[in-house]
């Protein structure tokens, strides 16, 4: 079954069944809600950001395997990174999902994210994979722009095919 190759790889199922960084933070710098109106995926991202560094991240939400796994992997990829680095990772990931040509392999330290590459072949699921990342982006942009007061919740933005 090609599905097992493309979508339901072992890494993904592992993250789906045992998602990392689940829960919520006591006193987050920002709290961002993301929702995919088309399939009902919802998640809340808690970010603890200080000195331009992502100190901690926690995820609460219900989603499909792709969504849950993507959020879980993302949390591992960005935890401890600088905002700048997080931006780079977000861009790399979005490029892998969205670019027309086949992008070069992910750098070694992000190798795990490769497991999600097959999602590209399933247009509807790309949104599932992207939801956590777009939600993250909104959170760190909100902080950077200074628009977001400490502890504030950013309300659902809507996810589109972009």
């Amino acid at each position, binding site marked *: 079954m090609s599905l097992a190759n493309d979508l339901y790889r072992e890494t993904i199922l592992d993250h789906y069944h045992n998602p990392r960084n689940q829960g919520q933070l006591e006193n987050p710098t920002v709290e961002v809600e993301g929702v995919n109106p088309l399939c009902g995926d919802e998640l809340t991202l808690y970010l603890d950001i200080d000195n331009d560094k992502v100190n901690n991240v926690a995820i609460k939400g219900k*989603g499909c*395997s792709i*969504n849950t796994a993507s959020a879980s992997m993302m949390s591992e990829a960005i935890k401890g990174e600088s905002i700048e680095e997080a931006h780079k990772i977000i861009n790399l990931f979005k490029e892998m999902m969205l670019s027309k040509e086949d992008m070069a392999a992910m750098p070694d330290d992000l190798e795990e994210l490769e497991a999600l590459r097959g999602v590209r072949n399933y247009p509807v*699921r790309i949104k599932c994979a992207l939801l956590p990342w777009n939600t993250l982006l909104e959170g760190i942009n909100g902080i950077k722009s200074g628009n977001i007061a400490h502890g504030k919740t950013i309300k659902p933005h809507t996810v589109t095919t972009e």
Partner: protein
Amino acid sequence: MLDVDKIRKDFPILKRKINGKPLVYFDNAATSQKPQSVINAITHYYEYYNANIHRGVHTLSEEATEAYESSRSKVRNFIGAKETKEIIFTRNATEAINLVAYSWARQHVLPGDEIVLSPAEHHSNFVPWQILAQERGAKLVFLDLDAEGIVDLNSAAKIIGPKTKLLTITQMSNVLGTIMPVAQLAEMAHKQGAIVLVDGAQSLPHLPVDMQKLGADFFAFSFHKMLGPTGVGVLWGKASTLESMPPFLSGGDMISSVWRDKVTFNSLPWRFEAGTPNIADVIGSGAAITYLQALGMENVHKYEQELTEYALAKLSQIDNLAVYGTHDVNKRGGLISFNMAGIHPHDLGQILSESGICIRVGHHCCQPLMRDLNVSGTARASFYVYNTKEEIDSMVEALKEAQKVLGHVACK
């Protein structure tokens, strides 16, 4: 009874293969497939007599007008309406409901009034009322569902009261498949002087429905769910109620006379059909009615009950699979929502799709109900006249396969 082999030959899409497997289309509650006769009616219109209607004296325009208006007569006959002027063509059921919200409700719903509805309403019969209630300072009041997922009449008798201005309710839930006791509810509402809107989007394609027995003041549905083309819905309304309503959309064809400083409006039903209508698809919708009437709605309903009984029995044999709503096929239609423990419906839908089986997954435009059920979504298989027991068997096999791929993780 239905000759399903013969019926299947009328639907060209059923020849399609997906990943080498025959298409199994169980997403009928979202939209149905179309028989050749409907497709041909549209093609014939474009290839032979396409023209704008009502204001033309030339041959094509006369023919197009005649065909368009004769679809209206077919609708009248199909739903047992008294007069053709009670049939208003819209884009879809959603627009039909919005027409009532804009034209009727904005005249009648006042601060403090109550709009009573079920918690199982489709967003299309929910959001317009939520917006209206907020705008008017009116209140949405929810009926209760019993354990089978049917509106509870005892509690309804307490909820529907003198403040009720509108009762709006689906005749069949597009999530639970349950058939709601619409006539009884309408009677309660009318006793209180309220107006009754019935959302027939899921019921009319599958059950015999008669406006003279339903007890509603308004009835809304979409043709794309009943073998017809996309782009056509209907609002039926009692003539006396429609007569009293101001126009909703305005422009060409809905006017009688226009001056720089005043305007008079056309009579029913045209007063509510502004601009060039969806002529081809209204004509195609007439062909859909002809097809359904030839089958007979009693037969359609009985055949779907048979399929549903079969499917419920088969699904009950799968471990960790929960079906929502009553199991009594006399109280439900041929759509079944379910969930499998540990598997997100989205994943289920995808895996079935690989085997050529189309089901719908997600919130089915019923988020309030999803929240009540405490799920983010369900998987939903919905049947129509061309579906078979063998197709249900294929689905059951694929569901078992999905359980293997994604595994029910006991410890989660």
